[in-house]
């Protein structure tokens, strides 16, 4: 059964029959975390790096921003029995348009914000597929913890993370 994660949205699951998916990441970032011991996983799709942009919105929907969404993603997984040091972390998205990287760089800022939070909290990224100009759809299979990315294009390239 597919569970769709929208923009600025998050789903946590321990239901083995569920496939959690987020469609068409542009400059947004998708973070998939999974604890193989308890088979608990979560997928976050955030839009922007920092909630300081609009703290009210950040309170209403923490999943809008990296700095409010990522901690929530981990906390919600802990509630279902996941333990931080066992968690696998995979990241996809953060695409950019062509041209000067110092402008239109929300994709890169989104990625930088995630790295900063992970460094501070000693979280390692196990695998990632970020940057470039591709549109990506990100999948997390709760039964196995398998994570893959579909590159939107004619051949629908699939890449395991």
């Amino acid at each position, binding site marked *: 059964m597919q569970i769709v994660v929208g923009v600025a949205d998050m789903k946590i699951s321990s239901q083995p029959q569920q496939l959690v998916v987020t469609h*068409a990441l542009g400059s947004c970032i998708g973070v998939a975390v999974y604890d193989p011991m308890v088979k608990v996983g979560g997928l976050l799709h955030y839009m922007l790096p920092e909630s300081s942009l609009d703290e009210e919105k950040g309170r209403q929907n923490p999943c809008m921003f990296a700095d409010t969404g990522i901690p929530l993603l981990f906390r919600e997984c802990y509630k279902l029995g996941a333990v931080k040091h066992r968690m696998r972390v995979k990241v996809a998205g953060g695409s950019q348009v062509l*041209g000067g990287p110092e*402008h239109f760089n929300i994709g890169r800022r989104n990625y930088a914000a995630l790295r900063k939070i992970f460094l501070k909290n000693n979280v390692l990224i196990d695998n990632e597929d970020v940057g470039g100009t591709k549109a990506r759809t990100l999948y997390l299979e709760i039964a196995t913890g398998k994570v893959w990315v579909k590159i939107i294009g004619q051949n629908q390239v699939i890449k395991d993370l």
Partner: protein
Amino acid sequence: MSLVPQVLRSLKNLPPFPMVAQRALLLLNKPEVSIQELVDVVKFDPAITANILRISNSAYFGLRREIHSLHQALLLLGTQELLKIIIASGATRLFSAPTPGYFTERQGLWRHSVSCALMVDLLGRELSLPDQATGFTAGLMHDIGKVVLSLFVEQKFHEIMEVVEQQGVSFQAAEKIILGVDHAEMGGEMARMWDFPDRLRLAITYHHLDKPEAYTDDLILLVYLADILTLMFGQDLGTDGLAYTGYPEVLRHFHLREKSLQRVLLQFGSAWDEAQIFFGLMGKQDGVQRANRG
């Protein structure tokens, strides 16, 4: 071998621009539009009138009263909003064929086009520009060339993508190299055949800012920027992904900083949810439901 003759031949079978939308386009340039003029445009098309009422009552406009008539819609929403709704309802049919060269999902182009139109409105608001249905319409129609070019892009997709990847150029530039014509030019040609107002036609032709003429009208820059932001937001992205060029001079021109862009994206997130009613104009099967874009 250039496909240009073939592409141009396919224009011979171009369907006419829907009449209601055509007549609404003519009203775009008028400073004052009377209720009667708007009623005259839509009165012979009950489907469009029904759509107008449906959209007027949607979350997107957030009106507290239920609207039962065209007159009421006009009073509460104003001419410009009503023109947008009429044009969107009228133009839907043009987007009904799938465009597999660009989108794996049947309604992909329609959804991207509506998104871009909404983004033009939000950007206009951020920049305190007067709200004009012209901007929305240009956003809605900017990629209309893809309707015709899709067939050819589909045949040559791998060659086009190879140029994008090896030469680092935009998807549009690669179309031009491989097909001899790109979707913006194509759209401009269609706009000419349909007798679109000049500003609208030029916004379609130059929306990727690949010619100096693009800089003659803020409308073109606005549509360009809205398109780029729509791609960044993701959702309904096509096979061309984000392979278009970001020009920082456009941000400077509008005195837009990155924070402003982030703010616009933030607002777009909510507007996009509320605007699902526009996406649903295409038909019930994928309808208002969030379509599978995988």
